[in-house]
């Protein structure tokens, strides 16, 4: 299967390329990159006035399979990812059963082989059952295909357990992804602690809940020399800690979600359960600090924290609604509109943050770049394309997005995975 992509503006941050080039794909790999390649009967894609980027990678998605297939499946999640411009997505282990053993990892991988249209990269649990007590057989899980480890929504409370996990992870050179939250501090909170929570009388999660665990992880990362990746950074104090850590000798990386960049806690005045997410939407000042940190290059990558929940689960009172925002199909248009097209983030930096760097963090050697021999995973963008977010047209099984109705400029128009067009 050969495919020729002609006349696209090829941007590859890994090789600092930004020029009009043709790309030839053969049997899932990029085989030639030149200003002009002749077709000779090959299927041709005209990418004139389009941007051709290395395939986008989302380090943080919840695909719900096995166990909660009413919310999402590996198949529907992958379709949503392809539509959203992602060629690879890493899925969190909080499935039922938890992905803490080889059997579950293998199940996810075999299900992905059968039904997924993008690469599915399982993240396994750090501790058995996400209980924060005993660490999993990390080497066995790594062999089975896990590319990183995380207890995601159940951050390890016991610092010694966390330290042991970090020490052991060095053996495998894999990142441990931490959802930083001191759950004693956040308690029953459901939104950010600030003026809006005070006004609405809603139980709140203070910024310190995140900051304290980020600080702990930095200290342990320094001590153990392990790779720590901070999930969904959301408060200014945590950004300051990250800056401190990056000036030290640590291997800390961090991600930010679109919803933490483009929404604030003030929006909860609508009591819309689609705005209920953990970490919660933060204050205006936090958002400014996150944007500044992106502009200044402190943040490594964007991640969706795609957390699908059924309409019925969200159609309840705020206290009862589950946390989470559906993100795969909205992330790239949001980031292109609000950051790239508003000149906050140059296009090549954006592509690096959403492809080159996550590939590096996850140790994906043949992804995140456009070079001869690399996997033919490509995301093609149209920067001037206008879209209106419409949750009723989501390919995800769920609809829980607070961005319904948003008008955005800039969107993926074609997604190619292993040389196959999976969305156009």
């Amino acid at each position, binding site marked *: 299967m050969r495919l020729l992509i002609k006349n696209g503006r090829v941007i590859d941050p890994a090789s600092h390329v930004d020029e009009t080039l043709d790309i030839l794909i053969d049997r899932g790999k990029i085989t030639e990159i030149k200003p002009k390649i002749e077709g000779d009967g090959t299927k041709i894609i005209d990418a004139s006035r389009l941007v051709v980027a290395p395939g986008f990678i989302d380090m943080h998605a919840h695909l719900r399979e096995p166990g909660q297939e009413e919310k999402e499946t590996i198949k529907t999640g992958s379709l949503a990812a392809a539509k959203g411009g992602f060629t690879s997505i890493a899925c969190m282990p909080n499935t039922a059963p938890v992905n803490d053993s080889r059997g579950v990892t293998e199940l996810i991988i075999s299900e992905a082989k059968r039904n997924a249209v993008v690469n599915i990269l399982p993240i396994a649990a750090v501790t058995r059952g996400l209980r924060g007590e005993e660490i999993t057989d990390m080497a066995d899980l790594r062999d089975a295909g896990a590319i990183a480890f995380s207890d995601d929504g159940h951050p390890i409370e016991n610092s010694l357990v966390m330290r042991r996990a970090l020490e052991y992870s060095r053996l495998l050179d894999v990142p441990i992804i931490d959802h930083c939250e001191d759950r004693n501090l956040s308690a029953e909170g459901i939104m950010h602690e*600030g*003026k809006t929570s*005070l*006004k*609405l*009388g*809603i139980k709140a999660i203070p910024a310190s809940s995140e900051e304290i665990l980020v600080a702990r992880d930095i200290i342990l990362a320094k001590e153990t020399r392990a790779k720590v990746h901070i999930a969904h950074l959301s408060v200014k104090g945590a950004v300051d800690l990250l800056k401190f850590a990056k000036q030290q000798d640590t291997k800390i990386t961090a991600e930010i979600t679109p919803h933490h960049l483009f929404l604030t806690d003030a929006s909860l005045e609508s*009591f819309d359960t689609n705005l209920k997410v953990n970490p919660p939407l933060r204050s205006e000042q936090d958002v400014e600090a996150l944007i500044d940190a992106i502009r200044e290059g402190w943040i490594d990558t964007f991640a969706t924290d795609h957390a699908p929940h059924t309409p*019925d689960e969200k*159609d*309840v*009172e*705020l*206290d*009862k609604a589950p946390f989470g925002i559906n993100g795969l199909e909205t992330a790239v248009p949001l980031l292109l509109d609000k950051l790239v097209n508003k000149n906050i983030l140059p296009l090549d930096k954006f592509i690096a943050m959403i492809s080159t760097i996550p590939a590096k963090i996850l140790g994906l050697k043949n992804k995140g770049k456009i070079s001869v021999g690399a996997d033919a995973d490509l995301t093609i963008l149209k920067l001037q394309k206008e879209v209106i977010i419409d949750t009723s047209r989501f390919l995800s099984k769920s609809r829980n997005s607070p961005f319904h109705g948003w008008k955005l400029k800039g969107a993926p128009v074609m997604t190619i995975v292993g040389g196959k067009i999976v969305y156009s």
Partner: protein
Amino acid sequence: MPFDHKHLLGIEFLPKKDILTILDTAESFVEISTREVKKVPILRGKTIINLFFEPSTRTRSSFELAAKRLSADIINFNRQFSSVVKGETLKDTVLNLESMQSDALIIRHNCPGVPHYISTFCRSHVINAGDGAHEHPTQALLDAFTIRQQKKKLEGLKILIVGDILHSRVARSNIFLLSKMGAEIACVGPPALLPEEFKEFGIACDYDLDRAIQGADVIMMLRIQSERQQKNLFPSLREYKDIFSLTPKRFRRAKRNAIIMHPGPINRGVEISADLADSAKSVILRQVENGIAVRMAVLYLLLGGKERETTD
């Protein structure tokens, strides 16, 4: 006096002129409850449902009597004996009750925003009778009514609210209402129950009751719940009493003609000494009495008169 609202969800977005309309209308309803036959036919044929998901004595009975004195039919939904305990969702419960052709739903729920949520899918008028720590609009209205009755005005009065401000919907609705009316508001309580960020709502936060009470026209005491102690929000009721209880000695520092209010239920001898609660300075029972007239006014303004095409 046009009153163009479909629902009463809170005080925050209720303009001053509409607050005054409710208070003035309530004045005209006070007399009905003193008649031999305490009933007028204003809302005859209307069906109202009291939908209380939390325990309540005062508010539920007050709404029920208000509706009955206006000749409306009212039924009480009791959470314990309902399908909610069988796992029915809030939305299904409301839609089922509403399909019995209700005209208004009076909602009490422990989750903030529930009346707002219900108003997004139902066709009846929705009245918030207390949603979590968010708002309790009719309580603030009856408090304002009572203060106005006693002080003949609201503007310029010094109001002191004492206790668990953080968890109090009564405090929030009163802060919104009384500041719109030009009163000067100060709050006192333990720091964990009175975060200083409350200052952003244009009120003073003080942690010294003896100081803050000086010159107060109105002292509003809030119920302190012992479960707060289990969460370390303050160390013990004994210590709470020492620092924040309204005692005769403390009360002497207020203005000579100051009044004492409490939304009930009171903990005698905890947030307020029993003597003071029963004294002539206390208007606690007047608040309860006025609650009926104020709720009659709210029901009348929302449901009464000709059908309006409002989409508030």
